[in-house]
């Protein structure tokens, strides 16, 4: 497993774009490192990867990665990625989404891509807040926590992205955190290898906003919080709900093996003899 300090540079737009925009200590950079190391582990070529993101702090990630990169509109990364994957099925397609981007405005594309089981590896950066716009609550902000639009504490219940993805039909779901950089890398690798819609939820620190509004301290403090509150899925199975109260579960939480969409579509093309171009449009439609 690549832990060498230099492997990532191969994948960075190092000459152009650094230092990046993220706040000092922001976990998004750590997650990006884990993703790039996972790519390195799998020896994936840069030209074989399409990386698509939406809008948010998280959404800036493709700027720094030397793939085919597309920074789309807020919430729509997975829908764009769907068009890319379907029309170029040989590409490794990675969608980078934030908790607001991927689960609030983009929730519908998330569940439908999961249902369709199209081969997109989704990295969900969950910092429990809308970072880019300055700290409004997101669908993963825990009940009672503060945000600029939850000045009296959040009244809403958060999604558990795992349950949502599974309920929608995702093929693979794993979770880790910025503290667990190595585990994150391994899980992303698994997701990249998995055919179908796979999600890796990376718990991240937005100390600048979430941390400040909820008095959870600096980047370092928040990262250490992840250390203290992670429970591996195998260990979690033996714990009571009370013991897991303020914990989050890491590891591969869900795996399935349903047929993948773009593969099915290619098979349909083959079945219809669509590989060789036909000469003339056959024209006939009747609707009674």
């Amino acid at each position: 497993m690549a832990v060498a300090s230099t492997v990532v540079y191969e994948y960075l737009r190092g000459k152009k774009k650094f230092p990046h925009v993220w706040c000092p200590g922001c976990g998004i950079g750590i997650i990006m490192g884990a993703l790039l190391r996972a790519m390195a582990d799998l020896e994936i070529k840069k030209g074989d990867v399409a990386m698509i993101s939406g809008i948010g702090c998280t959404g800036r990630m493709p700027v720094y990665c030397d793939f085919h990169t597309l920074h789309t509109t807020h919430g729509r990364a997975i829908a764009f990625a769907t068009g890319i994957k379907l029309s170029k099925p040989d590409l490794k397609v990675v969608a980078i989404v934030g908790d607001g981007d991927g689960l609030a405005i983009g929730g519908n594309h998330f569940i439908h891509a999961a249902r369709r089981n199209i081969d997109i590896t989704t990295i969900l950066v969950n910092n429990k807040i809308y970072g880019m716009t300055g700290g409004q609550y997101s669908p993963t902000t825990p009940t009672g926590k503060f945000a600029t639009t939850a000045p009296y504490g959040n009244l809403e219940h958060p999604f558990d992205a795992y349950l949502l993805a599974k309920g929608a039909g995702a093929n693979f779901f794993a979770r880790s955190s910025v503290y667990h950089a190595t585990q994150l890398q391994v899980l992303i690798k698994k997701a990249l290898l998995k055919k179908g819609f796979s999600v890796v939820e990376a718990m991240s620190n937005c100390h600048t906003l979430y941390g400040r509004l909820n008095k959870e301290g600096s980047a370092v403090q928040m990262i250490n919080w992840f250390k203290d509150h992670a429970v591996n899925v195998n260990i979690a199975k033996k714990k009571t709900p009370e013991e897991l109260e303020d914990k989050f579960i890491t590891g591969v939480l869900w795996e399935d093996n349903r047929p993948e969409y773009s593969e099915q579509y290619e098979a349909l093309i083959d079945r219809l003899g669509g590989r060789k171009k036909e000469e003339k449009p056959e024209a006939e439609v009747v609707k009674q």
Partner: protein
Amino acid sequence: MSENNVRLFQGNEACSFGALAAGVNFFGGYPITPSTEIAEILARELPKRGGHFIQMEDEIGSIAAVIGASVAGAKAMTATSGPGFSLMQENLGYAFMIEAPCVVVNVQRGGPSTGLPTKVAQADTMQAKWGSHGDYNPIVLTASSVEDAYYKTIRAVNLSEKYRNPVILLLDEVLGHMREKIHIPEEDEIKIVNRLKPTVPPEWYQPFEITPTHISPMAGYGEGYRFHMTGLTHDPWGFPTAKSSEIKEKMDKLMLKISQNVDDISTYKEEFIEDSHIIVIAYGITARVAQQAVRIARHKRFKVGLFQPETLWPFPDKGLKKALENANLAIVAELNQGQMIREVQRLAPKKTKIVGAFRYDGELITPDEIVNKIKEAN
């Protein structure tokens, strides 16, 4: 089933086969009356030809998938009607920003809102130009017969490729569903335009390169070029910029690649203009009605001509100005409460009296209504 490649086609059918003839190999859509047949036909035809069809979860997803496919290298298209077209506006703006060639067909029905799903209208005329936020420069085509729908779809695809710009094709419920004879040309009779591809070494490639034509070559995914694109205002490399000079350069590029080529893009048809001091102005299905009306009126000895924009945007300013040079009366016939008429008001000489022949009750305007307007206003 047919003689000499002559078929009885619905407008939507003609559009679908026009798209295939133009090389469209990706369709992402969501059903909506009266455009659904386009999706249904392409669902059947595309995989047979190695192309891809997908029914997305909504229209936002549809246009997103279309743009994604386009960026990846496909000739991509979607089709919808008013409500779906409204939902597409945000991502449509994105397509303009990243200069993604793609075609959006809007088979217009009565609005606003859910309105009149099975009835005709031309009330998305202005929306086609102004529906998304910010400044952008749509190419909007229209068609007035089933055969025209076939060729205009081909032209839409070609223009989108040529100018690396989304193109909107405005059809309507009557045309989409009506059947007429159409002669399907041989493949080699159809001119196909493909987007410019980069020839520079990959390290040099700027996806939004500033060029004399303002059109930048576009590499597909997996073709050896890696590049970044964003809906944020960006520099030629595709990276976000906050520099005023770069912002202006980008915005000018978007504008100029269209405005400098209006003569190539914008077409119109004229009938009996020379000797007429009354000009009827109409597009799409209404232009046909006007064709009839003009003939009836001329039969009644009115000096009437017809000006028919084939391209709504950029509007054929020059052509209309010329057509109205000697006009003292302009009748603008459209299936709405007055949209294109504002362009005529903008362009007409002061002496020209401008009268609207509007119909917006879900029915096609009749030749008599137009003739009566001519009689009344003259």
